[in-house]
């Protein structure tokens, strides 16, 4: 059994819900002595894709402790709203992970209503999740290259990200899968695969200057880690192996792990997973399909492996409306991991470690009522 994260007032584990909250070891808090001061990075700084601030306790250059300060918390109201409107909001909690969010939410709703979607819908969902993973893994590696001012790869990777977006748009109508999934419906039509030269991406690994900045940086060893961060530390954690609804095992899915747990291992895992995902996509067929959702009451959980780790929803449905909704976004766990792995490093390590987790502030800070 492994801890996945807090979901509502419970703790979600690989075996299901247990009374929460999850039990985490206490972090060691850095102390400031003579000469230390707190340095604020953010909330609106050029190097950050989203608005967030970090309060860094430092003696200059060194990082003794980091706290994250939230700035862009959105309050989203869902209670009592019809499922359709909640779906539109869920899609927009984190658009870069829209497929993961939507599919986890819809799975939760389907579980609550006691239906299992037809084969075609499941295949379409797998295709969407893997396309999304490819895009986000490329983006994470692109951010890492950009942090190193490694410009040619930066733009080559942006090129690939754009290519994936176009492939998604041709398959599902929208570059980020918005509107591609609906209650009792999957609208993607045909699968267009992006052309990605994985060998070219591997060239990154031959650049010593680049990998020096990632090796040994931000080591994660926590056994409650998730996603690529966990797999980079040698834990074989992956929702794709653990969740029954999406039949990944039938598609030749192989888990990728590394052992060091540092930013470099996280990048390696993401790089290899691009290839694994492309493999999975080769055997998938995508067709639109509708199915019936009955008007029932119930409670259900839906979990998927988002590009950055486990993502789960828990819903309580009543008469076609949402009574209760809880979200476990992977970024919330990844931020905890990031903050713990930062002390003992220096300022220049910061962006590399940060980007290596593939965190989205949008989903980590959203508050749902």
């Amino acid at each position: 059994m492994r801890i996945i994260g807090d979901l509502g007032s419970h703790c979600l584990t690989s075996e299901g819900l247990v009374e929460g909250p999850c039990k985490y070891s206490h972090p060691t808090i850095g102390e400031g002595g003579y000469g230390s001061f707190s340095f604020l990075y953010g909330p609106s700084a050029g190097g950050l894709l989203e608005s967030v601030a970090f309060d860094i306790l430092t003696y200059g250059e060194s990082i003794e402790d980091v706290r994250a300060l939230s700035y862009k918390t959105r309050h989203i109201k869902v209670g009592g709203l019809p499922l359709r409107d909640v779906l539109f909001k869920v899609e927009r909690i984190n658009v870069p992970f829209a497929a993961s969010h939507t599919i986890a939410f819809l799975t939760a709703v389907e579980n609550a209503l006691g239906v299992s979607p037809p084969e075609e819908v499941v295949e379409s969902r797998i295709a969407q999740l893997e396309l999304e993973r490819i895009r986000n893994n490329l983006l994470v590696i692109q951010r890492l290259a950009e942090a190193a001012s490694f410009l040619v790869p930066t733009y080559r990777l942006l090129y690939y990200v754009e290519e994936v977006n176009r492939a998604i748009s041709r398959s599902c109508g929208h570059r980020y899968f918005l509107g591609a999934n609906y209650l009792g419906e999957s609208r993607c039509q045909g699968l267009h695969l992006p052309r990605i030269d994985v060998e070219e991406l591997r060239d990154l690994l031959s650049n010593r200057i680049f990998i020096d900045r990632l090796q040994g940086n931000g080591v994660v060893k926590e056994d409650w880690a998730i996603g690529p961060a966990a797999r980079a530390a040698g834990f074989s954690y992956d929702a794709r192996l653990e969740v029954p609804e999406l039949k990944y095992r039938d598609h030749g899915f192989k888990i990728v792990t590394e052992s060091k747990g540092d930013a470099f291992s996280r990048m390696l895992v993401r790089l290899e997973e691009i290839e694994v995902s492309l493999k999975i996509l080769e055997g998938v067929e995508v067709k639109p399909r509708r199915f019936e959702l009955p008007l029932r009451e119930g409670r259900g959980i839906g979990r998927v492996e988002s590009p950055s780790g486990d993502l789960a929803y828990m819903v309580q449905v009543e008469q076609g409306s949402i009574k209760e909704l809880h979200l476990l976004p992977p970024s919330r766990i990844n931020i905890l991991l990031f903050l713990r792995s930062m002390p003992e490093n220096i300022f220049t390590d910061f962006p590399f470690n940060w980007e290596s987790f593939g965190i989205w502030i949008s989903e980590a800070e959203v508050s749902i009522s």
Partner: protein
Amino acid sequence: MYLQIDKFYLEIVTLLTMITALALSLWSARASHVVAAISSSLFILYGLYSGEFRVFYVVSGLVWLFSSTFSALHDRERWYSLTFSGTLLGIMITLLSQNYLEFLTGWELMTLFAYASIGVYRREWRPGYTFLAFGEVSTVLLIAGFILAYQETGTFLFHTLTDTLPLWFTTFGFTVKMGIFPFLVVEWLPIAHGNAKPSLSSVLSASMTLAGVYGIYKMMSLCPQTQALGGVLILIGAFSVLFGALYSYVSDHMKGMLAFSTIENNGAILTALGSLELSADPVLKAFAQFSLMVYVVAHSLAKTGLFLVTGYVHGESMSTLSTERSFSLEIGTTLLTASMSGLLPTVGGVAVWSLLETLFMESISVRGILGLIPLLAGVMVGMGEGFATGAMARFTSFTSLVRPRGGERGRLVLLIGVLMPVLALLSYLLSPEMAGAASLGMFSNSLIPSGYSGGSFGGISPLYVLIILPILSLITYLASGRRRVRTVDPWDNGSGRRLTYTSFGMANNIRLMLRFVLRTRKGAVETSADVFWRAILQLVRGYVRFSRAFSRAYMNSSISWYMIYMILAFIVVILVVFL
């Protein structure tokens, strides 16, 4: 000059004026300082008429003039004016001495008064003990050297010698007093622990060490050349440059970092002395002599100015001190630290350049393994200067540039600061040669060239830089102008928290990078707890214990008895000399 001033009378008048200052201190501190300033001015005048040692005299006089002026403006304690003018008198006698006995008298007087001044300031005698203990080590070595000289010549008068042993002994006696590695506690301790007032710190750091340089220089002129000593001095000096600059860089104690910087400067001067002793080539020797003199000028005056800056600051740690900047302090401190960092067009720039040139020229002209010494030293000095620039940038920033604006003060600092580029021009007077270069619109004879036998090496033109720099700035200003200036708040990433950085933080990169050498400990004020430093501290403790035991046995546990003894000894020596 139509008016022929009799040098002898000028000397007597100068000495008597300083003695008057000493006497006046019993009545009024201010009067004493003013008279000390007058005496210093007379001494400068005297220096201008002297031959070979002119630079030492004029520079010492300037240091005293500035520090006693500062004291006249800011210090009110009579005991302080007493010990201060006594120290000056001691150094004066040393510099003016005609024989070994007078020299020793001045030397002891200087040690004694400086010791009293350090001890009395905070009513804390321990730093003084160390100072004194080292002072006595120094004196013992000097006496040994002088006795050897006496044995050879049969007179106490300064006379040409054929043996190099007196030079070896006295040189080490002097370096002890200069606070050169491994004796850096001599100066470092009292200054860094804030046991000396700004004006005394200037005198200890600039003038007292200069007396040591003077001593070595004088003995070198009497003794035959010894290349071995040259090599040793170059190495010790260069090591002190690197070591002093590194510690100055990581020190967060305002006076501590200046004290370390003094070690660095003294190291550079010692290196210059060493290269003077190492080379046999007359052209090179002349150039080494030039770099020595320029260094003496640059270091003594800039350091005096910087210690006076500390007089305008409250608190001692760079990260927590409070002060206000003023126009004078900003410009003055910037010029002083620019000179300390070896940047043109200040005199410090000329000094660093000429020293490095000397070393690299020697490395190719001195034969055999000895030639490696200046090469190695050049590398260490170069690295040291890099650290020094960082340290000095931090000093200017946190003692004035980043501080809130306050009332106008520190004009004396401005004056000394402005001297830096002026002295860069005056360095032409010391240069053994001048040349023209027909490129970049260089004016005729505006180049100070460096050359060793049979070749020219490089050149520098302070005048050119001094003229071109403002012209280029003016052109830029006229071209882009004030027209589009717009003031907005600094962008603090929108947090409204006004991003700040501390002095400690600025130096922390090196602390982290060299953590194995520096043994960086988190949150320690003295982060400089490295391998060497531990050894030194051990040494200090030993010396302190020794000097306590020494004082108990020798002075019957009473400082005053020792003082009385010294004064009696002083009178006896004076009598012996004059009779």
